[in-house]
């Protein structure tokens, strides 16, 4: 058993650091740091993805035949940690980590040839059409209907919580193509051009004041049948595959560590009288508590990675646990940041994007995002499967009833 990296891994780590030093400019870092959304702003993430693409690093886990980096899990882990600690933007997962693998596994050759390179190069921006008003955790109850009409499906209904739908040019969606059998049956997986007539997008502002999510309406939207991935009525299983990929593929401890370092930075310049807040016993204990929680999650992620590397299946408890703890720790970090603000947590800055404002901000740049991040971050324990659903999943596996 060995926690240290191999010489090859250390060489890779150095290469990553060199790349970050060369390409992660202060401007990019600032744009990322001044985005209080749960996700990176699309222009920021896209710009970064293009730089990664030029290096061949856009898709860490895609096989090389599809233009992926073909990294080992350890390499990907090193990448995640280094880029998070350096303050790099995160690249949207919607193309690379969500629809990409589904197309790769279940798509036709034509679909692969057309979509995969465009995902890789950030030429397309995808959004996910899963949730609907009224469905929520009970995703399979979705009602958006796709009715066959010759070579097209005619789609009617509505999707909600659609991240970056106002920016995306494509959507992958689960739609109902049949009412027969169980509700999970009769769901198909379909790729939709966002400029197809009949689609309208209504912005939904989050409580932090950010525009990340939307409601998308479909009014007789005609989508070619050729845009269906895999077999009709099998969409649920593809969607589940994607969700597992989404959760199990998370290596979140690096990003948490980066966020904690940021709070430490704020806590070092806020003061209580003469004393920097980071020396306040209550604050320093909470910083240690979060650090320890990140250490635990990191080791858990490394253990999962280690068993994946040797071909073992870490199981659904692992992915639910990682999702759960990641979201709880993120929230603990954002709460701590707001407490560090003290009196300044009163100050509200609604203008967006912050990194493009030319006027002075009402707080220091380091501190200005803490409050909207805390508020938007309430979503961590809701989206992608609520904490309650994760606990249901874990209990089911552990208890077996």
């Amino acid at each position, binding site marked *: 058993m060995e926690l240290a990296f191999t010489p090859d891994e250390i060489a890779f780590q150095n290469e990553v650091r060199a790349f970050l030093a060369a390409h992660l400019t202060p401007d990019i870092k600032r744009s990322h740091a001044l985005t209080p959304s749960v996700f990176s702003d699309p222009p920021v993430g896209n710009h970064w993805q293009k730089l990664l693409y030029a290096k061949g690093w856009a898709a860490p886990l895609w096989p090389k035949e599809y233009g992926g980096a073909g990294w080992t899990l350890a390499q990907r882990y090193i990448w995640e940690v280094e880029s998070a600690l350096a303050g790099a933007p995160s690249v949207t997962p919607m193309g690379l980590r969500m629809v990409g693998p589904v197309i790769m596994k279940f798509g036709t050759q034509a679909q692969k040839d057309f979509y995969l390179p465009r995902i890789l190069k950030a030429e397309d921006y995808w959004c996910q059409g899963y949730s609907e008003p009224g469905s929520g*955790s009970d995703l399979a109850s979705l009602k958006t209907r796709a009715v066959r009409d010759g070579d097209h499906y005619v789609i009617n209904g509505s999707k909600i919580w659609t991240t970056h739908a106002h920016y995306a040019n494509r959507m992958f969606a689960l739609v109902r193509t049949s009412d027969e059998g169980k509700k999970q049956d009769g769901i198909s997986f379909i790729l939709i051009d966002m400029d197809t007539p009949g689609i309208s997008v209504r912005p*939904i502002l989050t409580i932090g004041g950010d525009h990340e999510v939307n409601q998308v309406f479909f009014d007789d939207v005609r989508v070619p049948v050729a845009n269906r991935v895999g077999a009709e009525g099998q969409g649920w299983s593809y969607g589940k595959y994607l969700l597992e990929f989404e959760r199990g593929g998370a290596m979140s401890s690096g990003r948490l560590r980066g966020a904690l370092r940021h709070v430490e930075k704020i806590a070092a310049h*806020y003061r209580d*009288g003469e004393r920097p807040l980071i020396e306040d016993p209550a604050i320093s204990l909470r910083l240690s508590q979060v650090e320890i929680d990140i250490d635990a999650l990191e080791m858990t992620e490394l253990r999962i990675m280690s068993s994946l590397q040797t071909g073992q299946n870490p199981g659904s408890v692992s992915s639910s646990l990682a999702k759960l703890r990641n979201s709880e720790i993120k929230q603990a970090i954002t709460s701590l940041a707001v407490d560090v*603000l003290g*009196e300044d947590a*009163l100050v509200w800055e*609604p203008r967006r994007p912050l990194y493009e404002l030319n006027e002075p901000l009402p707080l220091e740049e380091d501190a200005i995002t803490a409050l909207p991040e*805390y508020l938007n971050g309430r979503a961590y324990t809701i989206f992608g499967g609520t904490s309650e659903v994760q606990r249901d999943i874990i209990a089911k596996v552990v208890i077996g009833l």
Partner: protein
Amino acid sequence: MNLGYSDEQRLLSESANNLLAARAQKKDARDLWAEMAELGWLAMPLPESHDGLGQGAVDVAILTEAFGRHLASTDYAPRIVLCGGLVAAIGSDAQKAALLPALATGMAKPALAHAEENARHDRAHVATQAARTAGGWRLSGDKIGVLGAAPDRFIVSARIAGSLRDRSGIGLFLVPADARGLRVLSHATVDGGQASRIELKDVELPADALLGANENAFEALDRAVDQAIAAWCAECVGLMEAATAATVDYTKIRIQFGKPLAVNQALRHRIADMSIQCEEGRSMALRAALYADSADAGARARAISGAWAKIAKSARFVAEQAIQLHGGMGVTNELDIGMYLKRVVALEAIVGGADRHLRRHAALSAAARAA
């Protein structure tokens, strides 16, 4: 011992809640402040000698609880309880006559400018300097977190003597909004209100600008802030109860997997915990109100900080869980549910968090044990 409301108090509670509920439903945009003046609400805690009604902290709490329930009027406590309370407590007769009746009619809109950078809710932290001049005083310094939209004057704490966190040597100065050398930078607040940072640069004031000619106003300030906290405790109770009620309604209506969310035992227990914290909060807010006017400063401070330590934590829990149990809808601006949390965050920024007040309670307890 009798902890029930009087008939008058029950009536006040009903009329306040009915009025605010009706305004919210009609999206009534008429000036609430003017209506409150008409109803006598602004006069309630002000002294009878100056057009006030001389009512106590329990009555104020009835009002602010209703504000919390309906997410209304965040100006009441800072303007009436803090500014009004300070003028009533230590103002000269002339200052009282000038300000209190105008507060009661809603004409005067003063704001307390006390907090400063790096104060971290230490109420004796005053770096702003007040220097004596031939004609009176010259003030210089920066203030943050000055509550309320477009104040017409400020009550500014400034140090006449002593060093940064000394309790002695602090005076309160009446500064008109148009004073030379005063710069007001207003900003939005997380709870949808307005506040400002102010910069005082050699602001010249007459001798009678010093409230009550009192060069040691800390005790009065400490007491007024505690009284405002009692009002905010009650506001949080209203807010917690409203957030819990909204959550109960939502989880009963929202269907998931063919059943209302509210049948899930894990959510039921969460709601039970929210309800428990509402009840405990109600107890502590009542306790805070009953001690707010106490002559025993140590007992008052301990009761207030104890109540706030409990309520700030409970209110944060309840407001966060209300969002969690509303799911995706909870994290949007489409529902009011996020507003409860924002108001709690604002109050913690104003008053200090549970940790801070637990420490104050512990320090006061240690002092009491040593005595």
